[in-house]
């Protein structure tokens, strides 16, 4: 991942429309996150690390695929910071790289079962691939 990371910070902020410096470090996002235990970096860390420009660990972390986009953090943040949008912007930073799709077409079949709704498949593709 040879990318100008300073640029990545600006890019993530621009794309997400989130101003991480609005964060007052209360931790309510992480206190509310249903995917917390699955994540190496937690919502408040995403906000803080983007604010300080510490992007690389986030890009490499599986945490970006664990966010459920449930928007609970967005709704409950007392400062209107919208952490989920930051997570999504970081994920896009990764999957928009050439060949960096998180889901490979060949892996799809094994995940399917009889009842799985189409909604799950399209959403997963929208979230995990370019």
């Amino acid at each position, binding site marked *: 991942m040879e990318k100008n990371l300073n640029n990545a910070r600006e890019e993530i902020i*621009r*794309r*997400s*429309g989130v101003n991480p410096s609005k964060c007052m470090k209360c931790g309510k996002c992480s206190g509310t996150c*249903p*995917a917390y235990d*699955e994540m190496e970096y937690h919502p408040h860390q995403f906000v803080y690390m983007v604010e300080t420009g510490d992007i690389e660990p986030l890009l490499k972390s599986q945490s970006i*695929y*664990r966010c*459920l*986009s*449930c*928007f*609970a953090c*967005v*709704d409950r943040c007392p400062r209107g910071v*919208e952490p*989920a*949008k930051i997570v*999504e*912007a970081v994920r*896009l930073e990764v999957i928009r790289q050439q060949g960096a799709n998180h*889901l490979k077409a060949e892996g799809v079949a094994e*995940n399917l079962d009889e*009842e*799985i*709704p*189409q*909604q*799950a*498949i*399209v*959403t*997963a*593709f*929208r*979230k*995990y691939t370019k």
Partner: protein
Amino acid sequence: MKVTYFPGCTLKNKAKQLDIYGHKCAKALGVELEEIEKWQCCGGAFTTSSDEIATKLSSVRALKEAESKNQPLVSLCSACHNVLKQTNHAIQTNETFRARVNNYMADGEYNGGAKVMHYLELLRDVIGYDAVKEKVVNALNGKKVACYYGCLLLRPSKVMQMDDPENPQIMENLVRALGGEPILFPYKNECCGAYVSFENKDYTAVKSGKICNNATLNGADIILTACPLCKYNLEKCGSDIPVVYFTELLAEAFGIKE
């Protein structure tokens, strides 16, 4: 009255009951769901990133059609509703986004004139629960119902504006109108695990399991939902509490369920 209807892929496939009973109940209430002729998949998720344009165009086309017919755009699937509503909101509030989208719109601009409405909102705000009540033939007789909203109907609440995002009552009041008894259900807006079930079923089973558990603990007979993916996840988590679409319950109360 007529409304423009956006079914979405899942309703034509794995979630046919949601669609079929949605149509039947609407008919019983004197509303025709006029399906958009050439609808395309909404994409399943609204990408919040401001530079995503192409993936949102199918929604914009649907919105434009509803606007041109001067009808509200109604959907049943939570995901479709969420994507349509968020897209519409982005068009209305973000000038750059609107301009960029309209670069792709071959036959005329769309500027956010459509009104996006979930079927539940149609019932509550347009038809009214009193009118719904009048159509009930098989009252639910105090059936204990856990109304499960999940995320997509409620959040982001600034955009969705369906109800109080922390303690919504739109489904509860519907259940009451049908003669059922909604239970106290604090997990009603917890995430079921969503699309992660596609690659990690154990993970979603934990999330959904907590929800079903809370419903059972609080005495529910069934869980009510509007979302095919939620239904799938809740049913796969190992709990045996039945999960039904709200349109099914509606049809049951109206006596039009086969």
